[in-house]
């Protein structure tokens, strides 16, 4: 009874909040519309840009500055300790950086290549949409859910016992009598984790690339075919150059997702067995061991690594837009 009441109270108070908010906005706009002449354009600027700038400041700029400042402080954030946190990263956490780099190179390339292959194979196939939907479906599964599903696939049991994990059973069927404990199988366990990421991202790459392929004007392909281009030549000389910009956007988008990869590693290994990546290490330092300094330093490293990719992505998108 109480819960229902408090639920209703919450609902009505949030309605009230929305109404008050709209009233406020209307007042601001009304005041804005009063400005005439010289003041009109600066007033419009403030009213239109203001909310976005304030939100950006609160949500992005201030935290970024605070994190950067925190990365030069000690665990409790009470003392300035110079670059010690960064030195600690480069002294102790090189394997973590290497793993993240491996992820960054392999997972996006594999996802994009697989996605492109599937897009080409499925193009104009019968029931194309059904096949595509099935391949796209993992995209709808959260990383955590995917981690749990794949955890069952990689599950290890003694070869003399009934197997639980699909991968071990498959290995035994093809004649590998003593399959390894996959998750412990360093360094290959890293690739097994990447497989999950690829499984999720292939659908995204396929759908976007397939749309780009379909957008290639028919007369271009026809002209190339008239000139005698077929198969591989048609693909490498016509298709690829025509979808180059999309390919790069897909690649970079997946790269950014991979840099932040956290959920899969956390669920599958928690960074144990030589599979740690920067984002999970950052979480562990900041929120499990409460070392805000080291956590912040790792966050900054991640941020610095993502920035060039984002800039590149934006530049590419702009170029593409100006061509069209």
């Amino acid at each position, binding site marked *: 009874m109480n819960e229902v009441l408090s639920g209703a109270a*919450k609902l009505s108070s949030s309605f009230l909040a*929305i109404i008050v908010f709209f009233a406020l906005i209307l007042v601001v*706009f009304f005041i804005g519309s009063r400005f005439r002449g010289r003041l009109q354009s600066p007033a419009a600027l403030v009213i239109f840009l203001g909310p976005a700038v304030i939100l950006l400041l609160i949500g992005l700029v201030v935290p970024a500055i605070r994190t950067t400042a925190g990365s030069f402080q000690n665990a409790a954030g009470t003392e300035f300790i110079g670059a010690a946190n960064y030195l600690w990263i480069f002294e102790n956490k090189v394997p973590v950086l290497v793993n993240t780099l491996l992820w960054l190179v392999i997972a996006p390339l594999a996802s994009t290549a697989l996605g492109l292959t599937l897009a080409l194979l499925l193009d104009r196939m019968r029931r194309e949409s059904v096949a595509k939907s099935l391949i796209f479906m993992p995209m709808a599964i959260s990383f955590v859910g995917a981690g749990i599903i794949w955890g069952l696939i990689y599950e290890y049991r003694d070869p003399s016992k009934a197997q639980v994990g699909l991968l071990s059973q498959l290995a035994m069927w093809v004649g590998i009598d003593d399959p390894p404990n996959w998750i412990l199988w360093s360094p290959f366990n890293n690739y097994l984790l990447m497989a999950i990421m690829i499984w999720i991202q292939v659908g995204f790459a396929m759908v976007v690339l397939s749309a780009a392929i379909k957008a290639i004007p028919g007369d271009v392909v026809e002209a190339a075919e008239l000139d005698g281009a077929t198969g591989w030549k048609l693909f490498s000389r016509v298709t690829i150059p025509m979808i180059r910009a999309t390919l790069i956007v897909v690649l970079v988008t997946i790269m950014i997702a991979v840099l932040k990869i956290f959920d899969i590693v956390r669920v599958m290994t928690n960074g144990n067995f030589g599979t740690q990546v920067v984002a999970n290490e950052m979480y562990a330092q900041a929120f499990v061991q409460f070392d805000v300094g080291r956590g912040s330093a790792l966050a900054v490293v991640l941020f610095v690594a993502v920035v060039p990719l984002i800039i590149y992505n934006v530049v590419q998108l702009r170029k593409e837009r100006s061509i069209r």
Partner: protein
Amino acid sequence: MTALKRRRGAALIASGAAAMMLLAACGGDSSSETTAEETAAETAAETAAETAAEGDGAVAAGCEAYAAYAGSEGTSVSIFTSILPPEQQKFEEAWAEFESCTGIDIVYEGSDQFEAQLPTRIAGGNAPDIAFIPQPGLLAKLVEGGGPVPAPESVVANVDSYWNPAWKSYGTVGDTFYAAPLGSNMKSFVWYSPKKFAEWGFEVPTTWEDMFAISDAMVDAGVKPWCGGIESGGATGWAATDWLEQIMLRMYGGETYDKWVSNELKFNSPEVTAAMDTLASWMKNPDYVNGGFGNVQTIATTAFQDAGGPILAGECGMLQQASFYGNFWVNFNPDATVAPDGDAYAFYLPAMNDDVAQPVVGGGEFVAAFANRPEVAAVQTFLASPEFATAKVKLGTWVSANSGVPLDAYVPGSIDQLSAQYLTDLSGTFRFDASDLMPAAVGAGAEWTEMTAWFAEDKSTKDVLDAIQAAWPAS
């Protein structure tokens, strides 16, 4: 003109949406404030009514036991805790009589964000009267920030007479005693299947040597005597730290254990190395583990929740785990019974060294107060009394280390009763879970990951201990 209008409209919607998100974020706060105000108003009304009803302060019939707490009629004490329903109802039921007899209204507030909210509330001048602190480390941190008030004499008296002295030290920061223990749990258990033991013809061991004689006999009979799992998501490795703690306490006793916790005894010292070697001959012994799962390495990838499963099937003999593991057996088999003659039960992990009397590793929460009003002291004293603990125990699934609680208040043959039997021994060697007491960088960091690597990658004992010691924050 129309274009301009349309643009204005779009901007209106966009900025509206953005600010709505902000408001939604703030909305939660304002609604919870309302509830707090309502509660306050409600309490005030009740208080007025009660004050009117109370007469000259004579003790009402049936309230004789609460005479010592009288004198605070019409007051209210707020309690903030991480303990949520359905446990909340049991607490409220256990002190209902106290409330009606003393006229003190206890306002219970549980939150799953307790550890994050408590410091904020203290800093904001909105501290609760009493908080149930889940571990000593947090108490020390709070005292450092100047929140808790020292426990009144009456609480000290209760703790002195009913608890093992170690408990008092965990409620003490510096030289001041702040917090009396409340609930507790027992980690020094070995789970086994009484039915399988009877079938195999084994008796429950009472000495460390017996336990390993049985282990060897199981090996001869073709059964892996031990199973274990330390996988626990973001906390993978904690179960292994518990094993090391059991051995540390059993080999060296309480004082050395305390030095280990404070790093006076280094993590890579010969003493800890010897304890690790003992652990290696037990849980890293390929003849002994990992029953039902495979080789030693599988300990690192087996979830601690799953580790006991093979015991019911007779594929594994024993599992070292805490008292709470009693709730897990129904996950393996819905019909599994937890009883001295059932499918699963526990025995006390035996002592190793005659000089260390009945070593027990455990945990529990503590009652800290943030106000020294008489009614707060009355509630604190009552919570530390055997009367409260007995009433709470009788409501089930709760253990108190208060030795004033008669053992027959527990369900006969239950794990709770068995836990209480060891926890209430005033001459036993009780110690708190060490990894909970160590700095988070060690107890929730390096010790977890390094112990996991010790099992998973067979990282050398020396490298593991050096790495844990290196992670100890310089202070």
